[in-house]
């Protein structure tokens, strides 16, 4: 009964909420009306957009030393999570069988473990830093904490189910993923889709005004 619920109605519901929610949020951003910029352009908005998309991958030299922990832990977490999400063998097989109809070569098991360790270590450090730094703590919202904890739980249940001998552990992972998918469009997790448009928008604005930032 529980298995039917998790792999049946709940899965289709969370998938629908995720897809419709993400599309709705992106549409809101794209079709949002802003003020028309009437100023004379001092530079290229396009080149500013492209430059900003890539330059933001590296911290500014002036503040690099102060945010070393966030940068290193941030890369560890995001790269680890990306590798887990798209190259873990169970995920590749699931995407091929249930969603896409095609697959790709998954990473070996040892790489899976290393990626998971990077992701866990990075996420724990980032969340601790958020809690322990007074400024970060002040600007953090409940959504930030829910997102961090939910992501951690999803990753943890996935890794605990690695033994493959227990179907209940797989179901638990499946269920937490569904929770994450339902929560995703209405949370700061949306930055997975918006970070490039956001950087491009800011970069174009800067580029048009000739701001080198």
């Amino acid at each position, binding site marked *: 009964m529980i298995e039917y619920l998790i792999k049946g109605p709940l899965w289709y519901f969370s998938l629908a909420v995720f897809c419709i929610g993400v599309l709705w949020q992106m549409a809101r951003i794209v079709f949002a009306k802003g003020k028309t910029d009437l100023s004379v352009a001092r530079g290229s908005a396009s080149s500013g957009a492209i430059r900003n998309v890539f330059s933001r991958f590296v911290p500014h030299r002036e503040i690099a030393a102060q945010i070393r922990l966030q940068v290193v832990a941030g890369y560890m977490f995001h790269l680890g999570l990306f590798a887990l999400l798209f190259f873990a063998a169970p995920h590749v097989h699931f995407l091929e069988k249930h969603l896409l109809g095609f697959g790709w070569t998954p990473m070996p098991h040892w790489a899976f473990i290393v990626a998971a*360790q990077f992701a866990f270590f990075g996420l724990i450090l980032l969340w601790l830093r958020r809690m322990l730094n007074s400024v970060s703590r002040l600007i953090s919202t409940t959504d930030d904490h829910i997102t961090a904890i939910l992501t951690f739980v999803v990753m943890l249940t996935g890794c605990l189910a690695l*033994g493959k001998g227990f179907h209940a552990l797989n179901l638990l992972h499946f269920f937490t993923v569904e929770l994450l998918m339902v929560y995703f469009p209405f949370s700061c997790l949306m930055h997975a889709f918006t970070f490039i448009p956001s950087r491009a928008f800011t970069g174009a604005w800067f580029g048009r005004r000739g701001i080198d930032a």
Partner: protein
Amino acid sequence: MLDSFRSSILYDVLKLTSTLLLVFMLTAPATAGPGPPKRPDFPQGVSTTNPGNDLWREVRQRDLPVTGTSQVKGVDSGVLINVEGDRWARFRIDNPVRHAPTLLVAVVLVLLAFYVLRGKVGIEGGLSGRMVFRFTDYERSLHWCLAIVFLFLAITGLILLLGRTLMIPLFGHHLFSLIASASKEGHNLFGPIFLVSLLLMLVSFARRNIYEKGDLTWLLKGGGIVGKGHVSGGFFNMGEKSWYWLVILVGLAISISGLILVFPNFGQGRVIMMVSNVVHVFGAIVLIAVSIGHMYLGSIGTEGSSEGMKSGYVDINWAEAHHDRWAKTCHENDEILSAEEFARLQGNPIDSGDATTGAAND
């Protein structure tokens, strides 16, 4: 007729044959080769030695720990049955599995008794509200990261060590096997994170934890917890330094032995893995037991000590009570913040009229 038969050649042949057969039957046991060794305490009349015994004695290699030869090339591939494995399994059940719960419960009870009898170790004059900087964001993040990972490993490790004895009666075989499987995967996954955190901890804190003059006095006076006299200490006192080195050294032993256990494909034999298991288990139990004391002293056991790892700042009265030599340098360098300044730094600005003693620590 009978007389003629007795005088015939056939009669002579049969007579000789039967005589030879009789002689052979009587002497056969003595000439068939050496039998099983006779044990003086064994009743000779019921000798039922199984001819397979010798074979299995050789296979088990109990008396003759000689490695055989095999076409399979690998570590211990010439050993059919490892005798040490049986000894290790019995040792594991008789020692850590049997005594670890008693030790851990005893530690908790001792601390509980200490708290009831002694109470919270206070600060003379109470907390002032004036704060001094002690730990950076990075140091605190590292400390809590190590703590979280350690707790996770301790819980999953105890489930794997004691679960069969303590959890099966409670949860049954199926649920326990599910929990044990999850614990094993989680334990193996988080182990290397513990090692990396430990190495980062070593790099960040080692210099300040080198023993110096005056540390022995701290130890002889019981760290000020026993008795009421003031005990002098630097940035870290003798107790904190000893805990730090215990974590580093035992933590490294646990990590290295854990890696030996997780990666059996690097050529280590079974004996090395069994020794690693013993080191791993005993090191972990010691570290868990002492960490309970650390958690007690860092939270409810001592007034004002948790603040350092929460905000990074500590009350100057706390510093003077436990780390007077370091507090003296803070005074000399004018590093002490007022309650208002500290509250503002923490994003909780207060009116100067509210800056009463201890207000900033809430």
